[in-house]
């Protein structure tokens, strides 16, 4: 299915849960309302026409000018065929879920795609998006007692962490070169 068909299908099924459709460019996606997202995810995963069974990546975004955070879910359908021919990807698509910056909450989809478990933890760790109903929402890359979420645009690099200096000799506030 082409991205147009997928977005039309989603719009027909979920109506105003689909807030926006962006088909231009190299990365077509739809914006899904945060509280309806698990429903849409189930549909994307289970629907016979779509069968998006492979969640490739969750990229968290900081949309600082809009005062929003977002998570981009890149999906891909892997046919469960067992013939000898190499599989060709029937369709790939992306979903963006936007949440407000002050109190970022997105429902978890770890029960839809198991791999979302770690990807959501990473987004929580680095961007501070809280995924509701996540089975085990802890920091994954940073230490447990790390302050702040480093990938946010307004993140200030700490001056010191357990006695380890966080600035360079030239007293630069962030590791920007």
């Amino acid at each position, binding site marked *: 299915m082409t991205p147009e068909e997928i977005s039309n299908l989603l719009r027909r099924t979920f109506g105003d849960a689909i807030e926006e459709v962006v088909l231009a460019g190299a990365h077509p996606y739809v914006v899904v309302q945060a509280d309806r997202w698990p429903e849409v995810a189930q549909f994307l995963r289970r629907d016979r026409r779509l069968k998006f069974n492979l*969640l490739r990546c969750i*990229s968290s975004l900081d949309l600082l000018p809009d005062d929003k955070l977002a998570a981009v879910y*890149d999906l891909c359908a892997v046919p469960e065929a067992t013939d000898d021919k190499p599989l060709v990807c029937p369709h790939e698509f992306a979903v963006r879920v936007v949440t407000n910056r002050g109190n970022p909450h997105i429902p978890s989809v770890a029960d839809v795609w198991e791999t979302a478990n770690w990807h959501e933890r990473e987004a929580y760790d680095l961007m501070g998006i809280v995924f509701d109903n996540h089975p085990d929402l802890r920091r994954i890359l940073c230490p447990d007692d790390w302050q702040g979420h480093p990938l946010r645009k307004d993140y200030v690099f700490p001056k010191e962490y357990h006695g380890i200096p966080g600035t360079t000799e030239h007293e630069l506030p962030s590791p920007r070169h």
Partner: protein
Amino acid sequence: MTDTILESKPDLLVDYDRAEQGDLDTEELLINMGPQHPATHGVLRVVLRVDGEMVLEAVPHIGYLHRCAEKIGESLEPYQYIPYTDRLDYVSAMNQNHAFALAIERLCGIEVPGRASLIRVIFLELNRIASHLVTVGAYGLDMGAFTPFLYVFREREMILDLFEATCGARLTYSYITPGGVREDLADGFVDSCREFLDYFEPKIDDYNDLLSFNQIFVKRTGKVGVIPARDAIAYGLTGPCLRASGVRWDVRRAIPYEGYERFDFDIPIGLPGGTGNIPPGVVVGDSWCRYYVRVLEMRQSVRIIRQALDMLADTTPGEIMAKKVKNLKLPAGCEVYLETDNPRGSMGFYVQGDGTTVPSRVKARGPSFSNLCITTHVCRNVLIADIPAIVGSIDMVMGEVDR
């Protein structure tokens, strides 16, 4: 979660009351495998909950090699960022360079000259062989077979020599950049490369004799850590790990890039995909299959390189860089997510431009990161000796897990 258990439970605790009553219940033990452990290939830490030799639960902890690769990507131009991609998966740096370069090219609509594209394919596949060699050798080492490790490094050395002759570096190449490749091939590269391929192909049989079909090795890895195809897809496994589960999924074929559709090659998968010669005691999706898919992939890479070397004769030397790639402005509001098939699985880069020369967001989707998240699911009720067998067959490079 596990950390708190670890702190609340003293080591080697003996329950004296129960011992006095003659109750022979065994105590569970929490063991830290890593971050400094020979079998964890770097700084992975797996917390094992064991009962004697039996592992009841294994929880991986990562992040010891976190170097803020994505944050750095937001403050550097794509050219400057290429050396950082080397350091993600340092065992297959060419493929990492390429994944990022391809994302930038797709974002900015850059066409790569034909010669550069062929050179890229040659180097990608050479690096795939080099990376699989490390995996195969290190996996043997995990299983206690020391000798294959040195054999594969002998062959890898020759690949590194070819790389060194062309781009001067042996581990972190920064050779493939947005728009093409940095330098043309070294003089005599094509002949040397053919010489290497002729030498290398029969060596694969040596590895099979020595390791792949060794009875002890098959017994150690067969039926250990079986991942069914459905689980593999649900947990986001890609690359050899997914193919070993019987799914013939390869991004090079599924969503072709870099002209891979021009080449004739097979995609080896775990068992019924059929190479004869399969030892008994092996099932689809077990550790042996994950290992052996890599051995088979090396042959396919040799095939691709041979074809690419033949095609290279039709191109003009020197055409290795697209025009107008200096001071590249990434279009505002444009974003791209692109996956390439790396030796360890699908390496994805999500790049968002904001009209300047510096991307506003770079997200690297490491294949090992996704592959590793199945560890807890697979490592249940196995022996301690199976943990290296499973973790080694998933084959992660911590640089790219932690980024």
